[in-house]
Structure formats: C-alpha cells, structure tokens
C-alpha cells in the first residue's frame, strides 16, 4: 500500500522542467513533510501523486496501479489533494454544500453523509462557518474548508499543499492535531510547508526538494543536523534551534523545551 514515484520527470507545456527524475515512496499511514525552495517542484510532485498531472517520463504507482492507466478521478479517490490555492478547489456557494459535494454525487445515504461531514467538520473546526459563503472567509479558514471537503471522502492518502500559510497559532495547533488523528486512523499524510517550526514539531520523516529533485529523505532531526542539505536547499533551522546552535549547546535541539532544558 504505497504511492511510488519511479524516476519521474515532468515538464509543463511551456517546456519548463519542474520535476527531474524523482524517486519517492509514501506508505500507508506515514506522515511526511515535503520542504524546499519556492519553485523547487513540490506542488508539481504532489499533483503527480494524485493523477492531476501525469509524468512526462517515469511512472507513478498508487497501490501498484499506474496513474497513467486510469482516470484522475479514480486516482483522486485514493489520494486526496488539497490545493495550494483554495480558490482552485472550492466552488460551492456555501460551506455545507461544498462538504456534501461527494456524498451528493455518489448518492450516499443521509446517515452516512451526516456522519462523515460531521467528522470532517469536527476535525477542521469549521462548524461555525457552515452556512457562509467560502468566498467571504479569510484565506486560512477557506483552506480548512478545502481540507474538510477532502476528508469527507475518507481517502487513504491526504496531501496538504501549504496548509500553514497565513495560519495563526491556534490554527497551527488544530492542524497538528488533525494530522495526528489521520495518522492514528492509518491515513497517510503528506504536507508541503515552509514553516520549519511546524516541521520540527510535527514530522518524523522529511523530504527535501531542491532544483526539481529530491536531495534528502530522512527524519527531521537528521535533516536539521545536516548543514550540507540545509545549504543546498537553502533552508534554515527553527529560530530556537539556531540559537541553541549559536550558543554551542550540543546537540542543536529542535523542540523548545529541549533548548530550555539545556540552559543552566
């Protein structure tokens, strides 16, 4: 039960190569962060995973089925992708109808619909906004609506593209809880983010992309210890960890409490 990218390359129609010979596998129930510079190819990579894009060369296998051999819709039922730009995903005129889109399309029973929608709403904390228009919601909340809409379908893999952008502290905590919950249920979660503190606190496995390629794939502590990888992907440690390192408090720890404990 994995998503596997075998030597995958992808070029956009204008000729720009966005992903270059990437090999990557995400197993069921895993929790993975993808980090890297702007334009490194993160969004392109995950769009390849759910079939929205098909590789120019190489293969993408979802549970051993080549995404090129089936429709995007079929792949997408397994692999839910939450768009970087929520406006690209949300078209309902109110939040509730957005959430009930898949149930209505698949003619689910009312109970099943209610149960799944309620669960998705609870996980994302958007209960207050059900009757509102997604267009009027602040960016961050719109993003949660987009996540909830995908959770309703109970996919086996969930991909979140920059869910931390513009999120406040409370939103971050909520997101962290949500990811944990999905992991407990055996759903794999792949998250693209630029928030290094969030990565350090939430993910064990971190995939680093730079210049269209995967340059590292390791536990967070290892990645943030690897000066070479950090330099090549132009990444930085979370501020607290930077401080610990500057002060020579080895090992440069990532969690704030560890840093605090190291200070006499």
């Amino acid at each position, binding site marked *: 039960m994995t998503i596997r990218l075998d030597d995958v390359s992808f070029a956009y129609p204008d000729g720009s190569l966005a992903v270059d010979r990437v090999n990557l596998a995400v197993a069921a129930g895993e929790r993975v962060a993808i980090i890297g510079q702007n334009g490194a190819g993160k969004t392109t990579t995950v769009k390849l995973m759910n079939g929205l894009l098909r590789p120019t060369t190489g293969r993408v296998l979802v549970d051993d089925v080549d995404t090129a051999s089936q429709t995007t819709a079929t792949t997408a039922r397994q692999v839910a992708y939450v768009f970087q730009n929520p406006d690209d995903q949300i078209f309902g*005129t*109110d939040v509730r109808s957005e959430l009930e889109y898949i149930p209505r399309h698949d003619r689910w029973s009312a109970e099943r619909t209610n149960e799944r929608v309620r669960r998705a709403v609870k996980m994302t*904390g*958007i209960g*207050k*906004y059900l*009757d*509102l*228009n997604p*267009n*009027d*919601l*602040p960016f961050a*909340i719109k993003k949660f609506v987009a996540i909830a809409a995908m959770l309703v379908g109970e996919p086996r893999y969930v991909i979140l593209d920059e869910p931390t952008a513009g999120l406040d502290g*409370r*939103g971050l905590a*909520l997101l962290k809880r949500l990811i944990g919950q999905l992991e407990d249920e055996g759903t794999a979660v792949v998250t693209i983010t630029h928030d290094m503190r969030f990565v350090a606190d939430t993910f064990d496995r971190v995939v680093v992309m730079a210049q269209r390629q995967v340059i590292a794939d390791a536990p967070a502590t290892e990645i943030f210890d690897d000066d070479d990888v950090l330099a090549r992907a132009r990444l930085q440690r979370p501020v607290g960890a930077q401080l610990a390192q500057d002060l020579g408090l080895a090992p440069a720890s990532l969690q704030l409490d560890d840093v605090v404990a190291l200070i006499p």
Partner: protein
Amino acid sequence: MNRTPSPVTQVVAIGIGAALFFVLGRFVAIPTPIPNTSISIQYAILAVFAVLYGPVVGALAGFIGHLLIDATGYGIWISWELASGVFGLIVGVLLLRNAVAEGEFGRPLAVRFSVAVVLANALAWLVVAPLGDVLFYSEPANKVWVQGSLAFVSNSITAVVLGLLVLSLYARTRTRTGSLSHDR
C-alpha cells in the same frame, strides 16, 4: 448598486462582460428553424452585468461583445450591435440602486428585473434594431419587423429565465456573512 462601482471595476467589468457575451453568443448559439435567428443566451449574462455594474458597463459590454461576435462571423451589422448596447443600457438604468451585490435578491427585485429585461428588449429589438436596419441598410421594413419581433420574444424569455437563475446563484455567493466568531 447602492454605490457606483469604481471606475477601475467598471473598465474591468466591460472587458470581462464583453468576453462572456462573445463566448456565449459565438459558441453556444442554439439554432432555430427561422433563418439568421438563433436563441441567444448571452443576453442573460449581459443583463446580470448591467444589474451588478450599472448601465455604462451594460451598454459597452453588449456593444463590444456583439461587435466581436459579428466581426468573427459574417460581418458587422451595426444596428444590431447598437441594439445589444441599448439593451444593456436600459436594464442598467432600470435597475440602478439595487443590492444584489450584497446578496439581496428577493421577489420584488426579481419582478423589477423581469420587467426591466422585457422593456429593454422591446426597445432594443422593436425600435432600435429595425429602425437602424431601415436607416442604415435600407432593409425592407416588414422583414426587419418580423426579425425584430422574433428576437424580442426569444430574447425576453431566455434573458428573464436564465438571468434570474444566474442572479440568484450570484446572490447566493454573496450571502450574509454571519458573525464569524473568533474561536474555532
């Protein structure tokens, strides 16, 4: 519109409105048995733009959009382009000061919209278009009247029905923003 849209918004709306009018008119024309006449659904969108952005936008979007349709088709026929402009203008004028953009779309407004669309259609297709045909192109009067009346009937029906549909959909996208409570 309680407040006239800013000049920038109007300019943008003319461009986008004309494009929508063009696409619908050029590629979604439903043919009828009567030669040279098809059911045009673009007037519904035009009416909606006139309601949302005012008479100037309605007039210019209609005129330019129609010009684009004809310029990429069988040639420009200025009296009908003017008629489309007049249609947008009149709908806009008759619906000045509405609050659709804020999500208000009840029965009174629906009635007002329908009346405005029918009136505007009458002026456009029973007066401007035939008169223009006779003046600019010296077309036989009875032929242009038949064409005009047909256009009047079919455009009135489609514009009212589809226009109401689009407006209510649009108003739904602008529903009352409830009190967004600050805790999640």
